[in-house]
Structures are given as C-alpha cells and as structure tokens.
C-alpha cells in the first residue's frame, strides 16, 4: 500500500510504461515519461537546495508540465503550492511570502508579471517554456536543463505519510488567503477511498476540470495515476465552451467526470447533451456547491447510464461525506443530501448544547475526524486553533477534529443535509469566498469608509456578489474604478458584480453596520429585477 503520493506513479509507470498518462492542450506524456521527467525535476530541485518540507510554487496555466511539477516536487521531499495563474500578481506575491516559497516553477510571462520585490525573494525559478538565453542568469533555469539529470530514479529522501505534500490557498475572512496544509496521508486517505468506491481502472479516462489550486483536482490527478488511467486536462479554451466541451468528452472517450455543479449546468443548458454521444461516460462526481435539484434531475434523465455522486467536504478534509444519487427517489426529492461519511472518516453534528446529534431531525455544526483532516493553516496558529480542535468527545487520547462551519441536519434516512453556513463564507462557481476578504479589499481603497459584501443566490453559479459602499466625506469613486482596484487584490470571481453607493450604511443598535438589513434590501431588489 502506498504511503506517499509518488509511489502511485512508481507503480503505474512500472506496470503501464507506454500508456498515456496526461493529455493537455493537444500534447501528452506516457507513464514512463512522467516518471522520468519528474525524477529529473526532483534531482534538479535537490541540487538547487530544495529540502524536505520546503515549499515550491507551481504557477502557470495547466498543461502536462503541471503534473510533472507536482510529482517532481514531492519526489524532492518538497511541498508544492499550486498558484492560481489568473489571480492578481499582488495576491500571488502575498502567498509566496506567506509560505516562504523560494523556488518557483513558472512560465516566463507569469514570472515577468510578478513584482520585482517578490522575484528578488526567489532563490531559483524553473521556467517550463525555455526562456531566451538572455534571461537565464540569476537562478532562472530553463526546462531543457532537466535532460541533464538522472531519469531512472528519484533522489533518496526520507518521507513518511505525515509529511506535507501540498498547500492549497483558499479565501480568508480576515482579508488574506490562508494556506491549508495537506499531508500525503490526507491525500491518500481520500484517493484510496475513491479508488475503492468508484472502481477506477487503467481503462478509465478521467477529466480534470477544476484548477489545480482547487482540491477537486486531487481526485483527477492522483486517482488517474493510481489506476494507471489517462488524465485529460480541460483548459480554458475548452472549459468555457459547453458545445466544444461536450464533443471533447465524446471524442476523448472520458469515462469519469468530476467538477462543480455549475460546469455541469452549463453543459446541460448549452451543449445538447445526450446519452448516445457520451456513451463511455460512466461516473459523474460533483462537489463544491449545492446542485440545483431541477438541473440534476434533467442531467440524470439525459444520461441514464451514468452513476451520479454528490461529494462534500471543505479543503481541510478533502471529501468527507458522499451521496450516490438514487434515481428512483430523485423525482420526489426537493433537496439533495450530502450523504454519509466516507470510509476511514467520521463525521458528526454538534448542537448548541455541545452534544453530538443522534436523533433524526436534529441539527448542528458538522465536525470531521480521521486521517483526511488537515494539520491546519500555514503560519496561522490562531486560525488553526479555532478550526482544528482537540476532540473532546473521546477522552482516551489526544486527537484533532475539524469544525466545518457548515450547519447540517441528520435526516431519517441516515443522510446529512446541508443547511447553511455559520459564518459569512459563500460559494460561487464552487469557489470558497469569504465576504470579509472582499470587504477588506474594498476598505483598503483610500476613499472607502464602509463596505459590505452581499451574496445574492443564483441558480447557475450559486451566488453573485454585490457590494454596498459608503465613502469618506466629499470623495467619490465610480463602480468600475472600485472594481478595477479590487482586481488588483482579489481574484476576478470575487469582485462584486455590482456596487451600490450610499452616504452611510445602516447601523444596528450597537453601532455596527447592519448586514442583515442590507442583505434583505439587496435580496428584495434582486428579486424585482427580471432574470436575464
């Protein structure tokens, strides 16, 4: 049994050396090549000083080199940090500084987009696109250098399953993203459970729709590698176009699909899906947000041969519960359960009296324990202490449990149902967004005095974001100017779509901004607008 991620590749490269491992943008590599290239990268990284636990950034639009980079870093004993290639450079610079990335694997145009002050903190930059010779000084290494390192074996590094494998940054309520630390064991607990339940074989073809900084991609990449299956990475030229995407699924013979529900909804609404065209597709997994029931019912009807699963779990636990869609019940259901705990994982709801909910109909906050749970957030002991707690429900030994912040109901049928959040985290297109991070970006603008971000529920993307802003006396800025300012600090999917200006924001009796009133007003005005 594998205990570190690279063993999955070692096994498949030995068994299926000539099989296609990864396809992206019309290029592909075999298992033998993936094993050899990642060995070479690991040797290069070691030579450049990467040691166990060192963070290495991966910063370029996804392509076959993305997977080489992920495996190369863990083979060197390092911890990879996938950085969103579409996020503003300022945010990437923050993350590089926050987790102390000194080695970055990137592309020349992305490197050039970073602040000089950030570039100066890097000891070494590996470029996947072989930059011109003139810029090869100063620790910049072209990809072609990999050829000079041993390919047969990875460097000897002592690792255990409790070592970190990667850090995934998600939105943070205090205005800055936070890095969720994940170990090899965290990942493998999930990967092994998936392999068992979804019976992935070397004949399967898995899509990779989610970006690599998003934990959905852990399944795509590592379950494909584990089984010796082929991974087909869906890049933005395909992801945005449902009709093209559907024909891609058909022509590449994708058998297993995993994405956020909104991607499936767009396929459903704009791609004339039918079972005949997607005859090889056998499993659809979705996670990240609530799938609107009417679209799920349509999807199930259109693809009668496909098994559908709702997976649930924050990045901190990867997936912790699942529900296999019961077709015979679907027509009469008005809400989809998040289901029951995955194997080797325990979940329970804790009510306001701090008791575990055992009766059907009981509600509480969902807690998770087991080997899939994160150690916590990089360099943020305070936040970690709030979310990863000592498990006080068993007195025998010390262990941790994670509080999700999600309110759930335990139903008659034994399934959990998601009810809502305890805090102001929302989901849009499956992305986790802390409204506080948006407000912090707005408040950082010199002319903004008060700002509140509000989520307006939306059938297709989950929620749309709106802001209400008040300026300091005598100053005004237009909405596009403020949106542009936000774009320098937060990713595009977090920027408020519309901004309303007021002289001052309504206050509660304690003098705080009245978020409830503003939210209700916004929901009312959104309801009166005719949907596009």
């Amino acid at each position, binding site marked *: 049994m594998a205990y570190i991620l690279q063993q999955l590749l070692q096994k498949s490269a030995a068994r299926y050396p000539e099989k296609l491992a990864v396809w992206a943008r019309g290029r592909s590599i075999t298992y033998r090549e993936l094993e050899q290239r990642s060995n070479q990268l690991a040797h290069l990284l070691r030579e450049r000083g990467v040691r166990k636990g060192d963070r290495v950034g991966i910063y370029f639009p996804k392509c076959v080199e993305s997977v080489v980079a992920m495996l190369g870093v863990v083979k060197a004993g390092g911890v990879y940090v996938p950085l969103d290639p*579409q996020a503003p450079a300022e945010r990437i610079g923050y993350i590089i500084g926050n987790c102390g990335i000194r080695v970055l694997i990137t592309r020349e145009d992305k490197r050039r987009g970073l602040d000089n002050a950030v570039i100066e903190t890097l000891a070494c930059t590996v470029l996947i696109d072989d930059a011109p010779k003139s810029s090869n000084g100063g620790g910049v290494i072209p990809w072609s250098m990999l050829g000079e390192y041993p390919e047969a074996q990875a460097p000897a590094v002592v690792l255990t399953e409790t070592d970190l494998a990667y850090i995934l940054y998600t939105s943070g309520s205090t205005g800055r993203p936070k890095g969720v630390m994940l170990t090899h064991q965290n990942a493998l607990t999930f990967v092994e459970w998936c392999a068992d339940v979804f019976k992935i074989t070397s004949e399967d073809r898995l899509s990779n729709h989610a970006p690599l900084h998003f934990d959905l991609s852990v399944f795509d990449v590592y379950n494909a590698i584990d089984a010796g299956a082929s991974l087909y990475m869906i890049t933005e030229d395909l992801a945005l176009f449902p009709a093209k995407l559907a024909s891609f699924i058909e022509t590449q013979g994708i058998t297993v699909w995993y994405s956020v529900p909104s991607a499936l909804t767009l396929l459903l609404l*704009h791609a004339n899906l039918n079972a005949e065209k997607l005859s090889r597709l056998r499993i659809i997994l979705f996670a990240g947000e609530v799938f609107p029931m009417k679209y799920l019912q349509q999807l199930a009807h259109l693809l009668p041969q496909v098994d559908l699963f709702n997976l649930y779990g924050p990045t901190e636990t990867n997936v912790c519960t699942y529900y296999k869609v019961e077709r015979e019940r679907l027509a009469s259901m008005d809400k989809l359960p998040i289901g029951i705990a995955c194997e080797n994982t325990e979940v329970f709801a804790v009510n306001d009296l701090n008791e575990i909910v055992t009766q059907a109909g009981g509600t509480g906050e969902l807690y998770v324990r087991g080997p899939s749970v994160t150690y916590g957030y990089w360099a943020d002991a305070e936040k970690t202490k709030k979310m990863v707690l000592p498990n006080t429900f068993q007195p025998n030994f010390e262990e941790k449990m994670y509080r999700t912040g999600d309110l759930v109901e335990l139903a008659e049928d034994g399934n959990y149902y998601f009810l809502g959040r305890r805090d102001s985290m929302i989901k849009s297109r499956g992305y986790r967004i802390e409204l506080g991070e948006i407000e912090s970006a707005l408040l950082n603008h010199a002319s903004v005095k008060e700002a509140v971000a509000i989520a307006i529920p939306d059938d297709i993307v989950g929620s749309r974001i709106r802001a209400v802003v008040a300026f300091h006396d005598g100053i005004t800025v237009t909405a596009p100017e403020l*949106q542009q300012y936000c774009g320098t600090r937060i990713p595009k999917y977090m*920027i408020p779509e519309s901004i309303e200006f007021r002289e001052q924001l309504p206050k509660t009796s304690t003098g705080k901004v009245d978020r409830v009133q503003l939210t209700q007003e916004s929901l009312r005005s959104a309801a009166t607008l005719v949907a596009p």
Partner: protein
Amino acid sequence: MSATDQTPATQSALKDQIREFIQVQLAEPKGVTSFTDDDPLMENGVIDSLGIFRLVSFLEEELRVRVSDDEINAETLKSVNTIEELVIRKRK
C-alpha cells in the same frame, strides 16, 4: 491603447456597440477598465463561463444574429474584432 482612445473615424458603429457591451457589462464588473480590440478577452478573464452566454444573448437580442452552439468557441469569441467579424459574416 485603451478602448476609448481610438479616433471616431476608425470606429464602426457595430464595433462600438460590441465594445461598449463588453466594457460595461463584462469587463468593468471584473475590474478590467481597458482593453484593445485585439486583446484576448477570455485569456484576460474579461469573459468567463457566464459572460459567454450574456455575450451570446446580446448578439442574438440586440444585434439580431442567430449564433449556433458550434459557433460559440474560442476563435470566434476571442476579441472585439473576431466578434465583429462573426456578426458581419452572419448578417450576409
């Protein structure tokens, strides 16, 4: 060069209409205030998955051209210029 600093003589009314829609409805809400007629709009994050369908609705409802599912692709909707070409081609 920004979308606004071209001389009126070089602008066609159609291109203006397309550019204005993209600017106000798609680019500004994403924090992008300037782009050229050749800029790749998807690569720059101006058009996302929902933006595409708002753009297509605009082409169909305001500019009165019928766009088929197959025509919704990365080449035809790449930039202001390629979108204009699509509309001209469809109107012929």
